[in-house]
């Protein structure tokens, strides 16, 4: 097998920071190479260096042969041909990767026409086809949407559609499924697999999700601290990791309990039951949200919350949340899972008061968040910590991250002077970040590092209520494990309540006491984690469980076959 | 040879004359015009009397529509004029004495106020007459026994009435016509030209009045076939065009005076220099001393100012050199007015005499000079620069003044309208409307002209002078009257209410094909009537 892409001694540095040190690996046509490793270990930087997309501050050396040509020396015109044509790229943070002022349709059409001679009507047709392919509902209408009108997962799928638009020889996919729920993720993986078998597309897959690796990859490269520490076939790596780091990494993988993974079988024989404290909608797709279970002294209570995004001229209006009722008791973690685009972030936005609700109410410690003003509002805000889904855009590009973390502390005058610095340093360390990173600007960090900065900021004041929207999506499993440990520790210490949005069911299983499942704007099922995950009632929940990949190539292969049967 | 010069060559009848103006329009409604006999209005309107103007000669009064310059009777209270035969309007109808009367009556209607108004109070004291348009009332003090004769019954004797009869309101308006406010844009012409086209802000075009008869009109050669005004032109662009002298600009005349900067430029350009026409003298520029304010109430203090001001610096600031600016002034009556006497009550060099000024001030009890005076001036043109030159020369004599430049209108309001204005010194200039010493002195020094719109900027109030003015005005005999005015001139200056600075010369630039550009002793304006195109 000849190699389509061959990296040889690639080094990247930013000033005094050596981000990538002598990395060499190769990908053959039709092969899926997974690059895994520590967050901040240089996975993204290496990938971006291939297409010459690093900022001008980066110094790149080494060789990257693609089809026999060194990508680093290509003249601009040839490089343009390669970009988007022979090599498609899925960026790690889809929410910032799209131009906010053009519709997604325009941007997709543009990507197509940059390399194919198509009439605009044909290009449009092809674009809609692509949108359909990545599972975006109502592609005709979504074609006209602006990026800010889509959910994180939907945007990620747009970016994927854009990358595969010209059927590239090599697809570089940087965390392509971080924002996707497992059902959609399964479909996307299916799409990639199809691309590979149909066109012999090689895939350079950067991910921290070992389930995905197990599902898709042929070979694995493990990176740590800017270096490749180990590479081998997927079975070798999973079965017998040599390096200490790899072992640690695989050791950190958490999986759904075996009871929960029985979902596939159960889904095939669906039945609807209701149990105490565990409610589920009877129909699928549901037409209304299930009522809340009784609460005692909730920190957060959401009653009959609806959010409708008003359509622009001509555009449809979206009912992103429909009569959602939830509550969280002090010290409780409520896991919110659901389909991509089902309204999870919308609910989170409404809870924080950032999104204007159409109807219903949100109370935090009994105070209506929409009504509170002035001093009371500030006091209320102090009790809440928020982690946004898109870490990059939730950090001020002009502020060093250390200051961003210090902001809530300074704002509420919780500490002063050097105490602030100390607190910031300890916060950063507790999310596994070196305190030296504090002077950096957001764009100088890796995706996972940014996400941890956001977590640190949210935890800065030991909030009573933490609203975390996919807070660990960009973290490699070892860091994720440490962060989850931190969560638990803090919870034990301060007993904060948490609305934890995630598509990673394993994380939910570990962390959450109760789970609510959303689908198309409705809460279709909610109840104790054990009960919901082990004995899901609603068909969507069942599908969800069935789709969750496991970090074991053999086992995952078996599950995939079952899932296909179900679909 | 700047004085009253005649430039150009052989003028023949025909051609088109262009007049370049910086103002947005030109008033052709006789009731509302303040145009002197020699300028714009004369193209279209004739009047009862006119002026004979020539370089180097005193201006005299001559008949226009009338056969003579009026016969006074009743000690100057009644004046009778007779019209020449066969004078026609542009529409072919005959000009009648009743039309002159109608024209004057019209000028009393508030809708048509705004022109020269020397006749108004004399014919209708207290302006009780409100014009013919409301109820058709006639003005009883004007009689028209027949179509040719017109008799004015004045409220008091007025020796200069024949001169007053040359003001615009004495132009005929066909009886009953001209009720519309914009009559001035399509008037019925009695003069050599009629208006073909009139666009405010842009242009006005005149062609010959077919019914005008040159034989009845000695003062107007009416040389060009067509006259075209170009309004709203930037003065500097006008001067550039005239210096450049190409195309139709050769046929053009710039109606505004050349500024000092333009003069400097013209001096360095031989061709342009030959096309610059400068008057012999002109408006009296003077520094008015507010006689009602603070130390200035003291005549001895005021006298110090006569020596303090550096008239030479003023000359340079006003035109670049003394030649173009005109001599330092020492009298109130301007050169070119019949019977004027030249004298100097406060002899010194044009540069002034700061030592003497200081001495006078000290003698009047101000050994440390004066402080905190307010010197008002217009903000337009180079008035502020002129004020600076006055201010710095005063400073040399220990008189400290602050210049307060004001926009034209607020200046007028401050200086002319306010009962208690806030200024000590005002830099102003005055050009009389008729070549009579009366027009030099009465508007500026009679006590009735203080505030309320009058021009007595020095707020000079002397009962003696008031009486003498009324007397002189009533004197019908020109020679005798002139003598009285000359005496008044001295008498007033002895009180030192103003410091005469210069008799400001006016300079005009014209294209190389415009001929007969000449300026008489009075007024200091080019005589538009003589213009012709060199062919």
């Amino acid at each position, binding site marked *: 097998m000849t190699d389509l892409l061959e990296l040889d001694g690639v080094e990247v540095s930013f000033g005094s920071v050596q981000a990538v040190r002598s990395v060499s690996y190769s990908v053959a046509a039709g092969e899926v190479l997974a690059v895994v490793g520590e967050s901040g270990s240089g996975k993204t930087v290496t990938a971006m260096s291939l297409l010459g997309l690093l900022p001008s501050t980066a110094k790149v050396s080494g060789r990257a042969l693609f089809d026999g040509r060194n990508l680093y020396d290509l003249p601009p015109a040839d490089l343009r041909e390669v970009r988007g044509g022979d090599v498609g790229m899925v960026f790690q943070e889809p929410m910032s990767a799209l131009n906010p002022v053009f519709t997604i349709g325009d941007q997709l059409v543009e990507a197509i026409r940059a390399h194919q001679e198509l009439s605009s009507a044909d290009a449009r047709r092809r674009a809609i086809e692509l949108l359909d392919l990545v599972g975006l509902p109502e592609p005709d209408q979504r074609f006209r949407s602006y990026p800010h009108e889509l959910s994180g997962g939907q945007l990620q799928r747009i970016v994927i559609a854009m990358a595969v638009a010209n059927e590239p020889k090599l697809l570089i996919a940087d965390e392509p499924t971080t924002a996707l729920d497992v059902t959609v993720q399964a479909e996307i993986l299916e799409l990639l697999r199809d691309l590979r078998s149909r066109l012999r597309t090689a895939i350079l897959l950067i991910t921290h999700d070992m389930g995905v690796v197990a599902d898709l990859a042929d070979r694995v490269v493990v990176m740590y601290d800017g270096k490749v520490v180990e590479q081998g076939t997927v079975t070798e790596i999973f079965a017998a990791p040599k390096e200490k780091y790899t072992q640690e990494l695989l050791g950190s993988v958490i999986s759904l309990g075996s009871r929960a993974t029985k979902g596939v079988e159960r889904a095939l024989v669906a039945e609807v039951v209701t149990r105490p404290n565990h409610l589920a909608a009877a129909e699928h797709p549901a037409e209304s949200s299930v009522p809340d279970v009784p609460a005692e002294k909730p920190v957060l209570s959401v009653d009959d919350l609806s959010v409708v995004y008003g359509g622009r001229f001509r555009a449809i209006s979206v009912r992103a949340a429909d009569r959602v009722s939830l509550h969280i008791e002090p010290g409780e973690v409520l896991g919110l899972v659901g389909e991509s685009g089902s309204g999870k972030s919308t609910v989170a936005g409404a809870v924080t008061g950032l999104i204007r609700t159409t109807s219903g109410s949100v109370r935090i410690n009994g105070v209506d968040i929409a009504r509170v003003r002035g001093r009371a509002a500030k006091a209320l805000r102090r009790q809440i910590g928020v982690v946004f889904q898109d870490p990059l855009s939730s950090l001020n590009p002009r502020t060093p991250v250390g200051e961003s973390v210090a902001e809530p502390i300074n704002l509420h005058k919780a500490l002063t002077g050097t105490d602030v610095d100390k607190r910031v340093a300890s916060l950063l360390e507790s999310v596994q970040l070196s305190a030296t990173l504090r002077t950096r600007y957001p764009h100088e960090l890796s995706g996972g590092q940014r996400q941890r900065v956001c977590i640190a900021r949210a935890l800065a004041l030991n909030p009573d209520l933490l609203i975390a929207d996919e807070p660990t999506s960009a973290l490699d499993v070892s860091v994720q494990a440490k962060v989850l440990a931190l969560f638990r520790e803090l919870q034990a210490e301060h007993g904060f309540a948490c609305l934890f949005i995630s598509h990673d069911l394993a994380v939910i299983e570990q962390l959450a006491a109760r789970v609510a499942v959303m689908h198309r704007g409705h809460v279709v099922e909610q109840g104790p984690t054990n009960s919901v995950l082990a004995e899901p009632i609603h068909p969507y929940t069942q599908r969800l469980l069935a789709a969750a990949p496991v970090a074991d190539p053999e086992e995952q292969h078996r599950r995939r076959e079952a899932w296909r049967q179900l679909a | 040879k700047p004085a009253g010069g005649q430039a150009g060559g052989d003028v023949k009848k025909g051609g088109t004359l262009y007049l370049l103006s910086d103002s947005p329009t030109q008033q052709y409604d006789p009731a509302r015009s303040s145009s002197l006999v020699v300028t714009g209005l004369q193209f279209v309107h004739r009047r009862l009397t006119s002026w004979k103007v020539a370089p180097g000669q005193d201006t005299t009064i001559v008949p226009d529509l009338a056969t003579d310059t009026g016969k006074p009777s009743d000690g100057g209270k009644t004046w009778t004029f007779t019209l020449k035969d066969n004078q026609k309007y542009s529409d072919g109808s005959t000009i009648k004495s009743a039309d002159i009367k109608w024209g004057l009556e019209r000028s009393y209607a508030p809708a048509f106020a705004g022109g020269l108004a020397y006749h108004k109070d004399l014919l209708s004291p207290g302006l009780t007459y409100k014009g013919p348009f409301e109820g058709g009332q006639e003005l009883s003090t004007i009689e028209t026994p027949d179509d040719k004769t017109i008799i004015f019954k004045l409220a008091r004797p007025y020796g200069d009435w024949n001169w007053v009869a040359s003001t615009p309101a004495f132009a005929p308006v066909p009886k009953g016509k001209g009720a519309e406010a914009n009559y001035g844009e399509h008037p019925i012409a009695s003069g050599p030209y009629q208006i073909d086209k009139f666009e405010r802000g842009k242009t006005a075009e005149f062609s010959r009045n077919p019914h005008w008869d040159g034989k009845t009109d000695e003062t107007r050669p009416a040389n060009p076939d067509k006259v075209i005004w170009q309004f709203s032109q930037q003065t500097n662009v006008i001067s550039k*065009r005239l210096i450049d002298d190409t195309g139709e600009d050769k046929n053009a005349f710039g109606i505004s005076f050349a500024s000092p900067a333009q003069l400097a430029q013209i001096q360095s350009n031989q061709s342009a220099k030959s096309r610059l026409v400068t008057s012999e003298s002109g408006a009296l520029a003077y520094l008015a001393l507010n006689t009602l304010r603070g130390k200035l109430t003291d005549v001895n203090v005021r006298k110090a100012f006569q020596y303090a001001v550096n008239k030479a610096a003023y000359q340079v600031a006003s035109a670049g050199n003394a030649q173009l600016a005109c001599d330092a002034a020492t009298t109130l009556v301007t050169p070119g007015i019949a019977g004027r006497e030249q004298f100097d009550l406060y002899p010194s060099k044009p540069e002034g005499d700061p030592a003497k000024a200081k001495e006078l001030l000290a003698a009047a009890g101000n050994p440390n000079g004066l402080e905190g005076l307010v010197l008002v001036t217009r903000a337009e043109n180079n008035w502020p620069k002129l004020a600076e030159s006055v201010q710095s020369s005063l400073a040399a004599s220990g008189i400290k003044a602050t210049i307060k430049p004001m926009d034209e209108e607020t200046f007028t309001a401050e200086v002319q309208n306010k009962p208690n204005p806030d200024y000590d010194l005002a830099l102003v200039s005055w050009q009389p409307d008729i070549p009579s010493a009366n027009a030099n002195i009465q508007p500026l020094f009679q006590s009735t002209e203080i505030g309320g*719109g009058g021009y007595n900027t020095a707020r000079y109030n002397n009962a003696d002078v008031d009486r003498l003015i009324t007397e002189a005005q009533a004197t019908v005999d020109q020679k005798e009257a002139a003598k009285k005015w000359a005496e008044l001139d001295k008498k007033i200056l002895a009180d030192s209410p103003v410091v005469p600075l210069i008799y400001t010369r006016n300079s005009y630039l014209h294209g190389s094909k415009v001929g007969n550009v000449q300026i008489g002793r009075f007024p200091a304006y080019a005589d538009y009537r003589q213009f012709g195109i060199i062919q």
Partner: protein
Amino acid sequence: MRAVKFVAGRFAGMVLVLLIVSFITFVVFYVLPSEPAQLACGRPCSPQALELAREFMGYNVPWYQQYFDFIGGIFGGRTFGTGQAAIVCSAPCFGYDFQNNADVLDEILSRVEVSVSVAIGAAIIWLITGVGLGVVSALKRGTPLDRITMAVAMAGVSMPAYLAGMLGITIFAFGLDVVPKNGYVPIGEDVAQWAWHLVTPWLVLAFLHAAIYARLTRGQMLETLGEDFIRTARAKGLTERKVVGRHALRNVLLPVVTVFGVDLGLLLAGTVITERIFSMPGVGMLLVDSIRSLNLPILLGVTLFAALAVTLVNFLVDLFYGVLDPRARLT
């Protein structure tokens, strides 16, 4: 429905702005120690004559009464004086200019074409050159090209309009003798001549204004080029031209459009100095003439017109924000 409400709200706002502007103008005018009737008084002017003129022009009543008369005139028309010589100004009457004997509205309307011609042409030129230069100097940052562009732009902003106008006319009309010296030809009469007469004023105005566009574009461009979506655009294989010209530029335009709105609004209401130098009888010239003679009716009329132009253009700009940046869409 929402759109209708929005437009209605803005319209009400516009009317309010116009009312306030006219009211303030009135007040200021009466604070001014001026005598508007002086010009209609003639020479010599006696107190009686002044009073008569004031009465005729409607200045003999208290200022607030005059203001109500003015507003009333807009809806019901006005009549000045009585009898045969009375002046009727029919509704909508924005006042009557006694100095020039003209209905203020007619007077303004007859000059709008000139001002709009001057403004639009110049605006297009400076927008294109300004933004173009800005993009170039952003891409060539720190090179001599960037610096020369900057210096030329600075010469433009630091030059008084009057000087630029005089230089323009001296060089193009007198020196090179290629364009007409001045005057305006209506577009309806002869389009080529219209444009030919306007070339110099356009260039002069563009020279004066282009700098701010160049500089705003440059700064904003540099800022935008660091965004992630630019990287995405590059990764698609777009030419640099498209990346800059489409993806970056669109994000750059927000401040540019804002300034453009302010400039254009003001310009539509007349460019005083340019109009004078090039003898273009536009609204700006009317305003200056009326200020020089404190001609209140015209002043008020032009002021209202200017305010209308400014509010209208800014309204359009606000709407345009939504098109440029959907996130900033108005609600």
